């Protein structure tokens, strides 16, 4: 509980309240990204409102991961601009947490779970300064938040895929951010991890944070998120699930002949009616 209050205290100092009141967490204008001559993302205009759990959904090769990377300045953009609370990303780094795809790193790297989580504090530390006891304690607290505090000293290759994913999430928590970008956090994880991630997303939302998640599973998307952006190189639609996640929009996103997507959608409609009553 003490640790919990530390987190909230820290984040309240980290968030520019003034900016938050006037600007949206993420505003993307006319963004175009190309690889050689092929557009990967074209003319993306997207604004994510404060406090949303947002899913970015689209078929393979739609540019979902690229969109996150472009916002974070990790891939060169051809045109367009990105604003974080009304300012360029470079000025707002401290407000952002990033969970890359799990398979983007070599998990046989000689390091421990706790050490990976501490990397989340490196941004605050800046150049040369080493993490100390405060960073270590905070990283332990972040591990505990994803139920991994018992694995702090494990070498990371000895963790299951789901546990590795939770370590990555804990590292993003250690960034103590206000906006979290997550790239496919639900891919290849066990049921325990899936529940842990969902609980974490809800907790982040309760704390007023904004989460933007690349997600591939149309079935679970409406249950886990409350806001969606449908993407296929271009932005097809964005907004709350109720008005955005329609058969028509899904057909546009996945291609008119993609029957599977539509079936998914109908399945979801039925499900949603059921789950609304339960909730």
């Amino acid at each position: 509980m003490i640790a919990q209050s530390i987190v909230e205290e820290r984040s309240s100092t980290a968030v520019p309240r003034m900016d938050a009141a006037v600007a949206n967490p993420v505003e993307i204008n006319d963004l175009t990204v190309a690889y050689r001559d092929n557009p990967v993302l074209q003319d993306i205009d997207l604004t994510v409102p404060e406090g949303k759990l947002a899913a970015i959904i689209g078929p393979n090769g739609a540019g979902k991961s690229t969109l996150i990377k472009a916002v974070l300045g990790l891939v060169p953009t051809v045109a367009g601009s990105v604003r974080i609370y009304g300012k360029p990303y470079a000025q707002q780094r401290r407000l952002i947490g990033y969970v890359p795809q799990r398979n983007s790193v070599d998990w046989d790297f000689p390091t421990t779970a706790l050490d990976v989580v501490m990397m989340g504090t490196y941004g605050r530390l800046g150049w040369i300064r080493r993490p100390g006891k405060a960073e270590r304690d905070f990283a332990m607290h972040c591990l505990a938040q994803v139920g991994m505090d018992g694995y702090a000293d494990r070498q990371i290759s000895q963790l299951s895929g789901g546990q590795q994913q939770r370590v990555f999430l804990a590292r993003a928590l250690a960034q103590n951010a206000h906006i979290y970008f997550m790239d496919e956090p639900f891919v290849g994880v066990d049921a325990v991890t899936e529940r842990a991630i969902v609980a974490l997303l809800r907790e982040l939302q309760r704390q007023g944070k904004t989460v933007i998640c690349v997600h591939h599973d149309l079935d679970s998307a409406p249950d886990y998120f409350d806001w969606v952006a449908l993407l296929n190189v271009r932005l097809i639609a964005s907004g709350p699930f109720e008005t955005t996640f329609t058969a028509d929009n899904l057909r546009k996103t996945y291609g008119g002949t993609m029957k599977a997507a539509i079936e998914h959608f109908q399945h979801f409609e039925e499900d949603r009616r059921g789950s609304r009553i339960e909730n």
Partner: protein
Amino acid sequence: MGGLIELFSDYTLRNVALGSALLGVVSGVLGCFAVLRRQGLLGDALAHAALPGICLAYLLTASKTPVVLLLGAAVAGWLATLLILQIVKHTRISEDGALGIVLSTFFAFGIVLLTFITKRSDAHQSGLDKFLFGQAATLVEEHVITMAVLGGAALGMVALLYKEFKLLAFDAPFAASLGFDTNVLSVLLTSLIVIAIVIGLQTVGVVLMAAMLIGPAVAARQWTDRLGVMIIIAALFGAGAGVAGALISVSDEGIPTGPMIILSLTVIVLCSLFFAPARGLVWDALRRTRQRAALAK
């Protein structure tokens, strides 16, 4: 005991031992980062690319001062790195393809220059041919001091930027998202690897220098799951192999040092691969046999 006393009283032996120990420590430490970033081959390309640099430095200045020759090597290594990066960026040639092209082109050019120098001057007057396979016996105090200064600077940088280099090696995009300039870090780390190579050129030679980066790191990785420990073990292994190989080669006239060091290193690598506690292949096989026996019961 007698051998040890002789080692430090004999001027030549002392220089040889100190020089190769230094080279082992520096290449062991930097090799860890090269191996973890899967850049072992880059080290090979840089080492081979150093040869024309050494030859041109000699041709231009007619000086055999180690600082001048090593500077030539460093500049050539640097140019090779830039060339590789540009090829990967602007063509559809993959990184290993680019490494192969640059490595062989620079080395071929170096051999041509070396032949030209050897023919022009009195056969071995230039002494540049020792850079092919290394000749530790030619190490004098001046060389050892140059190596110590360069190596000390490189190790100092690693100590200072340990956190940043670790993050770069593990997850470069994440490092970039935090605001660390990964291009600068990457170029810096590669430059330090160039220094490690330059330090080893006279002792190990351009042909085998890459093994001096890769071997200690690979062996050390078998014994630990912590980067900090791995770096220390790699430094010790590098120094051990360096000193052992150099002393063997000096004991008999005409044995090139590079191959002896690499063979000593191979013994260390093989022992580590087979017998290291957690990852050793021998214990692996034993565990499997026991499990099979337990299951059979």
